[in-house]
């Protein structure tokens, strides 16, 4: 159904509002506690039973990704309708029903590069949160130089055989399936890479969590030893995986910058200016007493505002059909800087209150800030380092030449 005039769009709004009123459980309209985030998957647990209800209902409707095609279980909405739905969800402060690399990164790429059977097989389960995906990209010897990856994938006639190691695989220990970059030709670099999918329960797959400076373990080292993969799980053509990989990185960078990085804000965490007022104090005019810190907080606040205006501008221009090319790298670079600056300022404004690690004697939210500050250091590394993003901008956007 296409609604091409305002009246029809209003009809859709009324319908959507009514459906949400009837189907969004009450607790799903409250701020989400950190331990109630839903990632789905076959081993999913739901601390709050209403989270499951909400996911099932939204998934059934295809509204976990409202614009994906109906034939694969998506919502089939137009851009305009999807915006209306977004507004209606925001109006009732509805929680996102599902956090998912499948929704944000893999699904969009599969819809572009996968064949019909693959889409039918994988997309509906992404939408319903039944399969949790992880990303097999980086390797110990292939970080920024991703195309240097060495994980071998050999054609054994009836199947592929995979041997090698991935690293920084987010939540590999909890994922059901992996979308993975593998080397299918050792005589070429970029042209020797393929994009393949397999079940994490396959014999020969092992994921080991890595403990980070923040104390958390969101990433794994993942080992593949003689993993057999059916041939119909190769996406695109053999040795044609690099184009899919790059496209998927754009989705990844966009989702990272759109979210301003997970962990920003969060319930109960204030802005650096609030902590500075609280812990340093203000003069009679309400200005933060430390003038230098006040200036740097202002710089950051302006950067953050300029960033969100840029996201808005690019969205509007894209909608109006004006080319904006390679914005993902610009936004990813900006989002990393913004989130890291914010956390440095939060820690600085909190003073020693922001330097607690565990146990008594520190404010609960301050301890959360401390962990997020440490976590934010990864923002300029994951999904393409800031330096790689600057390379992309210089070469692809500004047209500067390769060093000879």
């Amino acid at each position, binding site marked *: 159904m296409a609604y091409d005039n305002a009246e029809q769009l209003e009809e859709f709004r009324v319908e959507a509002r009514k459906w949400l009123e009837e189907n969004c459980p009450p607790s799903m309209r409250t701020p989400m506690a950190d331990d109630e985030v839903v990632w789905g998957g076959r081993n999913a647990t739901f601390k709050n039973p209403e989270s499951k209800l909400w996911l099932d209902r939204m998934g059934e409707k295809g509204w976990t990704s409202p614009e994906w095609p109906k034939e694969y279980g998506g919502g089939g909405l137009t851009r305009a309708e999807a915006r209306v739905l977004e507004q209606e969800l925001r109006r009732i402060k509805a929680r996102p029903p599902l956090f998912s690399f499948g929704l944000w990164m893999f699904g969009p790429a599969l819809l572009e590069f996968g064949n019909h059977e693959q889409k039918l097989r994988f997309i509906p389960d992404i939408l319903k949160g039944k399969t949790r995906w992880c990303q097999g990209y980086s390797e110990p010897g292939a970080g920024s130089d991703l195309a240097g990856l060495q994980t071998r994938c050999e054609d054994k006639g009836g199947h592929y055989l995979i041997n090698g190691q991935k690293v920084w695989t987010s939540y590999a220990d909890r994922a059901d399936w992996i979308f993975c970059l593998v080397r299918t030709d050792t005589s070429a670099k970029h042209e020797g890479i393929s994009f393949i999918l397999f079940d994490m329960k396959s014999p020969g797959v092992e994921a080991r969590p890595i403990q980070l400076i923040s104390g958390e373990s969101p990433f794994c080292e993942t080992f593949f030893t003689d993993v057999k993969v059916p041939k119909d799980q190769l996406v695109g053509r053999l040795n044609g995986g690099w184009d899919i990989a790059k496209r998927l990185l754009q989705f990844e960078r966009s989702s990272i910058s759109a979210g301003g990085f997970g962990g920003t804000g969060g319930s109960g965490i204030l802005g650096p*200016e609030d902590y*500075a*007022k609280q812990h340093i104090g*203000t003069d009679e*005019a*309400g*200005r*933060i007493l430390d003038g230098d810190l*006040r*200036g740097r*907080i*202002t*710089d950051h*606040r*302006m*950067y953050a*505002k*300029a*960033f969100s*205006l*840029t996201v*808005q*501008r690019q969205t*509007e*221009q894209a909608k*109006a059909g*004006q080319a904006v090319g390679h914005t993902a790298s*610009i936004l990813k*670079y*900006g989002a990393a800087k913004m989130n890291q600056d914010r956390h440095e300022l939060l820690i600085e404004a909190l003073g020693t209150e922001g330097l607690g690690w565990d146990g008594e004697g520190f404010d609960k939210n301050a301890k959360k800030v401390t962990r997020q500050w440490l976590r934010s250091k990864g923002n300029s590394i994951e999904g393409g380092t800031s*330096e790689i993003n*600057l*390379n992309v*901008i*210089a*070469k692809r*956007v*500004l*047209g*500067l*030449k*390769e*060093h*000879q």
Partner: protein
Amino acid sequence: MSFVLTEDQEMLRETAMSLVQGELPVSHLRALRDKGANGNDPETRRKLAELGFFGVIIPDEPGAETFGLVGLGQILEAQGRTLAATPLLQTALIAACALQLGGTPAQKAEWLPKIAAGEATFALALDESAHFSPYTIATEAERDGQGFTLNGLKKYVPDGHYADVFIVAARTFGEAGDRHGISLFLVPSTAKGVTVTALKTVDSHGAAHISFEDVHVPDAALIGPADQGADILDPVIDRAAIGMSAEMLGSAQAAFDMTLDYLNNRKQFGQLIGSFQSLQHRAAKMFVELEMTRSCVAAALGAVDAGKADVAELASLAKAKAGELVHLVSNECVQMHGGIGMTDAAEPGFYMKRARVQEALYGSASWHRDRYARLNGF
């Protein structure tokens, strides 16, 4: 918030871009400088008037649609690209805004058509010290029975060296620094007691110190109510800062394009210097700043036209970001051009000199950062 131009605004932008590129390139400013014109060029004004650029925000009849500040912003951005010296900011923006926001029906009827036709030029006589501080006004306007008598000195008034009429901020009550007690007056440059001292400025645009010695003006010269001039001045300054930000965006974009071109042509060590990563990353960072600033300027222009409540905040955001941007890009432009960048024969120097003037007028980046923090409650 609209970040997409209307068709009319798009056409206006194209017209302005082709005017500055075709007829007002940097070499035009250089020629004016070399013959000592000090940024005063009647021929440029005639061309702008022909294209209707002075009347972009003045409705043909009350209530009629205009191109809006978004439209005027496109022209100012264009003139920023080639550093063209024009009276548009002072006359088409500041004077038109001040009169529309606070002018009496008689003042509007007399001046708005003349502004729109390019028949009268204005200059806002505001600053009295070397730093922007809009309420620090000591120039006095004393009631004298038939009107007011003005005494004081205004410094570095842009276009002050050739404007026909000054909009003078003077004190009718209180002390320098008070917001209350400021009044705005229309004063002809030919009035008795007005002395205009033309200044040769670093950017070759010129400006003037203007002294007022027992200058008499009638009651009819008062814009808006006496003592409450700040209620007009504040929104006028916000709009001036936003207009200047648009101009700065244009200058930064042009200096950046010129630098990029140089990086793609100059060879050292048998390589294009633009293939060196240290220069690539600096260029990429400038580009990110350019894109961010473009969003801020567009948002501020749009907010004025939409009558949004956050105009002041966005004005400070735009002026501070544009100030930082044009500062960075003009410096990098000189640096990346190497020795050539230090020569008068090349253009980078023109951009750097103009940038510092743009940065100083209507509040430096640090002035606006401070205001942004205040507006946000810290």
